[in-house]
């Protein structure tokens, strides 16, 4: 399978750092360009102006005196670190790379970026935590390019592979041992995805319905690899 570009999207550098290794590996495997995307959520930027909104640091300390400029500066810092880390990883893997920042809402931004041949890596829970399972979602009209990668990740981490298929789809041949579940409709699929353990790895390949994939990226609490085939 080839992907023209692999987009690593994150709303902060911490998210990006956790998924960077995975994104680089996929880009190298798929022979694609590696693109970094820092989404500066409007809602986060607005926090500083909201009455009663609170900011809490990663160590659990309340942060005070942070204004919009401070938040902007934090985003700029994250962007710089994201870009630097991306450049190092891409150069080490001999990949073409690029980086951009975009402000807005996640769904809209992702929806606009996903096109055929694009592979999106969206970080969920920190990858340093142990992986629970690999979940592969295949649509009835989508390709099966991610199947091999999913099976490889499951084998490498010695974690189970769960395959979510629509009722009328057949599992791809040669996938190896997997637990097969069938989902009814899209809503059912979204529920299952929202219920996934944050330490799972979700790979989804669903035709050209980019809107659906963007929703999946927002709903899933785990790291996602989404392919528009």
């Amino acid at each position: 399978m080839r992907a023209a570009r692999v987009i690593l999207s994150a709303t902060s550098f911490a998210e990006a750092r956790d998924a960077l290794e995975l994104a680089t590996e996929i880009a190298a495997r798929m022979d694609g360009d590696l693109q970094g995307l820092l989404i500066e959520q409007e809602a986060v930027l607005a926090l500083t102006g909201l009455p009663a909104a609170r900011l809490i640091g990663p160590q659990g300390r309340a942060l005070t005196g942070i204004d919009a400029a401070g938040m902007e500066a934090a985003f700029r810092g994250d962007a710089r670190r994201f870009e630097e880390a991306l450049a190092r990883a891409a150069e080490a893997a001999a990949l073409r790379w690029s980086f951009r920042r975009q402000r807005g809402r996640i769904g809209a931004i992702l929806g606009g970026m996903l096109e055929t041949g694009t592979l999106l890596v969206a970080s969920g829970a920190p990858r340093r935590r142990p992986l629970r399972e690999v979940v592969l979602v295949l649509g009835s009209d989508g390709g099966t390019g991610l199947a091999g990668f999913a099976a490889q990740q499951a084998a490498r981490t010695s974690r189970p592979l769960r395959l979510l298929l629509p009722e009328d789809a057949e599992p791809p041949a040669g996938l190896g041992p997997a637990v097969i579940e069938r989902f009814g409709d899209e809503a059912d699929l979204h529920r299952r995805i929202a219920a996934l353990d944050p330490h799972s790895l979700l790979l989804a390949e669903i035709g050209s319905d980019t809107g659906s994939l963007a929703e999946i990226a927002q709903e899933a609490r785990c790291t996602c690899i989404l392919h528009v085939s």
Partner: protein
Amino acid sequence: MAPEPGKPLDASELARGVQDAALDFATTSDLEPLEDWPGQDRALEALRMAAETRFPDFNLFVLGNPGTGRHSAVRAMLSGAAEPMPRPNDWVYVNNFDDARRPRAMDLPPGRATVLKTAVEKLIDDLANEIPAVFESEDYQARRRAIEEAYSDRQEKAMGDLAEKARERGVAIMRTPMGFGVAARRGDEILTPEAYHDLPEETRERIDAAMSEISAELEEILKQVPKGMKDQRREVEALNVEMTEQVVDDALSEVKAEFTGQENALAFLEAMRGDIIENAELFLIREDGATVGAFPVATTKHYAKPQFQRYAVNVMVSQPDGTNRAAPVIEESLPTLGNLIGRIEYAAEQGALVTNFTMIRAGALHRANGGFLVLDARQVLMEPFAWDALKRVLRGGEISIFSPGERLSLISTATLEPDPIPVKLRVVLVGERLLYYLLTALDPEFAKLFKIEADFDDRMPRDADSAKLFARLAGSIVRREELRPLDAPGVRRLLLESTRLSDDSERFSLNLGRLSDILREADHWAGSAKAETIAAEHIDKAIDAAERRAGRLRELSHEMIARGTMMIDTEGARVGQINALSVLEIGQSRFGRPSRVSARVRVGSGKVVDIERETELGGPIHSKGVMILSGYLAGHYAPDDPMSLWASLVFEQSYGGVEGDSASAAELFALLSALSELPIDQSFAVTGSVNQFGDIQAIGGVNEKIEGFFDVCAERGLTGKQGVLIPESNVKHLVLRRRVVEAVEAGQFRVIPIATIDQGIALLTGREAGVRGADGRFPEGSVNALVEARLQDFAERRRAFGLKNNGLGQGKS
């Protein structure tokens, strides 16, 4: 028959050898080898004492001249003494896991050090395979995952519950670049300020309370994360220890079983166990690639890897198993400080010098521990710090390794302070007598640490029994050196030469080295002659060849005399002139030669001028000799008159310095000749020292001196009148070369012992010396009378001179 002073000796007395010994064998092959050292009973007793006694300060100094068998005797005696002694323990250095700078010394039963080393290497190899396997096992992975998932689940549940609660309370939690943000929400959107302000107050309060509550809970959850991580780590560590302990204990039990009852080894293994468990991650370090060359990983020598060096066993001393060797006897031929006490080696790493306990090296003292150490005294004293270190070890009873560079603060680098190793051994120093006496006089510690001396004699009395022993000794030498056997005449010749080497016809030399040299060269000549045995002629040839090789200077000296450059008379007579004799020893060359001594006299104030002394060419002993003969003159002649002699004595044509008093008799004869105005027969040469009573005393080198004068006379043609006057007490030292003996036999040369000055002056002047009679006078015309008359005349003249100068002389009022 005892020699008669003043009468020429018979040829048979000039090289008596061992004609009286019954050497009743054909060759030395017929004789029992001699494993002993004849004539060295005193030294051997001392050696035995030092070898058998248990006191630590009874170390031994073996003194004597080179070639007397000191080293071979030491080796043989110590080897014999070491045989029944128990094998000493092995010694190793191991890591001190609490302080790597202080390696631990450990002793083990003999032969067990290498067993421990091998066992530990195998243990490390096993653990290098087994520990990673444990950590890769399903069981470990599952248990570790369970721990991590438990913490992760707790964290996630807390966050998940909070997120749910927040949603229900209308609060959104967002990730931000700074951590988390908590804000009010309406549906999926964040509540704008305008919308917030539009809310009823009650709603706003409710929202504010919810946000405070959610924020507080979020803060609490986040604060618990580090603690949770720490607790998780602790649990994982405990799991790691538990898994490692199992593997280590299983592997270690085999090794411990091999060392049951050996507390040292068991304690070390226990300490190693603790360190392995604490540092199990060392065993998880992987090289790139699963194989090394063609061998699968399981057979790689893991113990050799740097991370496992801390578990190595550095064997310092080990007594090999499977042999019957007893206590060690070690000879260190290069006793540098490092070779004696061991050394700590360093390696360069990135510009710095580093070391560890595996780089400690044993020295000779370690190897000899429990046994004997033989050292050359001169070499020990010449090596910097070696003597001091040796004494320190003997004093303290332990070996502490240090580096001289560090001691002098010349290098400053991380170093080690290994445990000292207790030592129990006997040190044997072998050296010259002078060194022994200097050490005794100048080093107060020496006498405390080296209480026994084994003094190897240079010679032993010659008799029939010792001659037979000597023959056996010669037989042992030829066997050891794989030479032809010596026939009986050859033995006799060798015995004669042995007496020559000892400068005494009544003593055999115990310079076994020199005798061995003669035999080896004689064997060479025997081989050239295709002989089956070494005969007397081969011994002669060896001796002559050696003398010829070393004879360039002797020939040069004689050539100067033969060509008249050095003026020596060997016939005629002259007043105040005599041939004295001296010995020159340069390198391997030792030869005698005549020197002209002359004396001049006149009236004076009683001074005998020693020109050698005046020009600082005479040594103190020579000056003493001249003063003694002055004393003789003063005591023997004109006792009632003031000594009014002025005399000068000199060694003519001597510019290199004169020492010793062996020419003092000759000097006195020259003086007496000058005083009596009687000429001295120049056919004679004289050697001997004189005392104040006119007795002639023994001197050294009598053989070379006689031969030196003989060769000069022989060069010019022997007249039959020539000869040498020697002290009577030197007759027993005569072992002259055959050429002299044959000349004496043929009546062409004479060797005449004298006991007094009177005997000598009579021979030299042909005039009776004279004995003072009852009237207090010497017989008229005798030498002594003429001498006394001259001295009295000097006294009278001096008196007259004095009166004249004072105006009291004749013709003055």
